[in-house]
């Protein structure tokens, strides 16, 4: 399986101890998440099962001292999915994959224990005071995401960063409601056929009809009910599976919703136009990042879709070694699609970016082969993350390129057929755009009301006046202006709301220089074309 090619797994000698430590860390995560109101009972989900039986006190240190066999036995005796399928004998690595199932293993880059403990306490502090951190020290959060979220808190952090947690709180019982509904048979069949095809060597998903696959079914089915017009796209399954490795089904569902609607809108929709556009954007950006690689790919007439479709649609979950996948996702949840572009660019640059490298791939096939079996060194966690962090590709560049490619698309292929909501560049932009904080669902982004006017709302909670006032300040700070979509224009462009990128996006529609924020529920947004700029420097809203 490509997902974890070259992935590293615990060393021979210390494997069990590493497992033990990981169980302890997961335990801590499960415990914390439990406090936060996890809906699903523990003791059902493979690796999480023994975890829940532990406690926060089960740290790496004291568990690691225990007898070697304890962890492995514990894992199987508590009803993990692998047991049902006769995989009890297999050792499971710290990520839940069957050891040896993923091909070559390189050395683990272990974070020293003391550092990990420090990070955990820092992250706990952040998570417990999330609004303040997001409002005042967003850059610090970004930095810590770049360093890697501690495994014990990763699932929780992803929920906070993506806004999945807020969504869940805004929609209590919604998932259960969707979960109880029978669903459209058309989608059920497709989903069912894909269940056993996601990470079949992960302990959670190894057994047919096991808990992991059941949860995967629930999450994906719920999404088809939540967005019947979108339905199910096969590339959503690996995304949902990665989420389920870190959180229960209900939480995973809301994170999936956020990914599909905020981070990567349109990626999974009918016609797949968004991914095709991003292929063009990626290729264009490559010219800046690595002219050599760009020239080679142009000369070979290799369509970006040939190599980037799976990369982008699965957010590299099927491409990179597992430790790198997690680090990339940590940054992706914080900074948005920019990270996906950067990872793609870094891989292309290092695979094809020099004349020596190109000697080995003179033909189209050799080139694609080179991109399909990437050198493990360039995918290795520390190297890749460093390169991604340093690559000077900003949201602004991506958005500018988006406009260019969109125009080209319209000239050559006409209007987009699927109208997607604007892409939000990461946690901060999502928070700032979060409609519930403004208290209302509006039928259309083009209708504007004073922000403190209470609106009838079906789902969202009413907005406290204090928050409303805050919003008036939004989008002014950077001289950023909201743009109204031209009638019938099916574009959705967001200028980045990330503090790291200076904002000076050229206005395309001077008639709509309205600094008022555009309120709109994502439920409605999906049907509207809108262009929004979302920038905010101040937000002390408490929503948790």
């Amino acid at each position, binding site marked *: 399986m490509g997902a974890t090619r070259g992935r590293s797994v615990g060393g021979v000698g210390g494997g069990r101890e590493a497992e033990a430590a990981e169980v302890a860390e997961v335990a801590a995560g499960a415990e914390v998440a439990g406090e936060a109101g996890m809906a699903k009972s523990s003791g059902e989900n493979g690796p999480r099962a023994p975890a829940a039986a532990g406690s926060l006190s089960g740290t790496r240190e004291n568990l690691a001292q225990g007898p070697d066999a304890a962890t492995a036995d514990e894992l199987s005796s508590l009803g993990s999915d692998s047991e049902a399928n006769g995989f009890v004998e297999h050792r499971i690595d710290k990520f839940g994959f069957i050891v040896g199932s993923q091909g070559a293993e390189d050395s683990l880059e272990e974070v020293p224990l003391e550092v990990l403990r420090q990070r955990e306490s820092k992250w706990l502090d952040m998570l417990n005071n999330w609004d303040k951190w997001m409002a005042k020290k967003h850059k610090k959060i970004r930095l810590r995401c770049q360093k890697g979220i501690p495994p014990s808190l990763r699932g929780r952090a992803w929920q906070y960063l993506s806004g999945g947690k807020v969504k869940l709180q805004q929609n209590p019982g919604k998932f259960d409601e969707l979960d109880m509904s029978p669903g459209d048979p058309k989608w059920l069949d*497709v989903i069912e056929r894909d269940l056993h095809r996601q990470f079949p060597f992960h302990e959670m998903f190894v057994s047919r009809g096991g808990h992991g696959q059941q949860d995967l079914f629930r999450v994906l089915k719920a999404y088809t009910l939540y967005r019947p017009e979108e339905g199910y*796209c096969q590339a959503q399954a690996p995304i949902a599976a990665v989420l389920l490795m870190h959180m229960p089904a209900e939480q995973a569902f809301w994170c999936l919703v956020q990914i599909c609607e905020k981070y990567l809108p349109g990626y999974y929709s009918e016609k797949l136009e968004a991914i095709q556009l991003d292929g063009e954007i990626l290729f264009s950006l490559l010219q800046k990042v690595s002219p050599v690689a760009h020239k080679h790919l142009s000369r070979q007439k290799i369509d970006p879709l040939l190599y980037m479709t799976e990369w982008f649609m699965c957010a590299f979950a099927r491409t990179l070694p597992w430790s790198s996948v997690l680090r990339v996702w940590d940054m992706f949840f914080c900074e948005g699609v920019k990270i996906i572009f950067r990872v793609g660019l870094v891989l292309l640059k290092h695979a094809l970016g020099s004349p020596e490298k190109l000697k080995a791939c003179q033909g189209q096939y050799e080139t694609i082969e080179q991109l399909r079996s990437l050198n493990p060194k360039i995918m290795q966690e520390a190297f890749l993350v460093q390169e991604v962090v340093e690559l000077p590709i900003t949201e602004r560049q991506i958005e500018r390129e988006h406009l260019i490619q969109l125009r080209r698309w319209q000239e050559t292929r006409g209007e987009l057929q699927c109208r997607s909501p604007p892409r939000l560049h990461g946690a901060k932009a999502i928070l700032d755009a979060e409609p519930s904080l403004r208290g209302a669902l509006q039928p259309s982004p083009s209708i504007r009301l004073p922000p403190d006017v209470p609106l009838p709302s079906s789902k969202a909670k009413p907005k406290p006046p204090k928050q409303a006032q805050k919003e008036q300040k939004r989008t002014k700070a950077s001289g950023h202006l909201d743009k109204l979509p031209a009638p019938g224009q099916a574009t959705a462009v967001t200028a980045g709301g990330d503090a790291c990128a200076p904002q000076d996006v050229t206005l395309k529609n001077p008639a709509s220089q309205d600094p008022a924020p555009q309120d709109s529920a994502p439920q409605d947004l999906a049907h509207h074309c809108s262009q929004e700029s979302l920038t905010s420097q101040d937000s002390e809203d408490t929503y948790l």
Partner: protein
Amino acid sequence: PPRPADFKLQVIIIGSRGVGKTSLMERFTDDTFCEACKSTVGVDFKIKTVELRGKKIRLQIWDTAGQERFNSITSAYYRSAKGIILVYDITKKETFDDLPKWMKMIDKYASEDAELLLVGNKLDCEMDREVSRQQGEKFAQQITGMRFCEASAKDNFNVDEIFLKLVDDILKKMPLDVLRNELSNSILSLQPEPEVPPELPPPRPHVRCC
């Protein structure tokens, strides 16, 4: 050193999701079978060199995502294919019922002279059969020049035959000058390939690992 291929051909595998397109390809190219094969996102391809009629042919096999919404991406790869393998699952009636939709895709995007082969896969699941062999045959008969066979990627039954038969049909159809032309126009032929010798010996299919 192995002598370079005489020429190159492109074949595309299409069909509804989960019918075993990737499995057929991997069985043929790598002689492997994965029970839990990951679903294909977008397009993928593999290369295998086969020897047929005394010629060494570098076969490029395009594997496509079966879900309908990927058609917008996969359709671009129909045009250059000299052979099209349309797959359904004999244990899933709906994948057979989808065939007319796939024929529409072929009509719309594929080259008119592409060889067509209909494959009923998963013959190893005879017990769960929902589509009879006759149904498959009948469907193929309605379409000019379409061949039909049943196969099992899992049991490695008829898999090599599928690809070799298709390649053989493609070769038979091609006049030699076209073959030469193919060679020079191939998107894969950046490295010069030797010319095809003037005569073809009698067909003696023989698969050789590349």
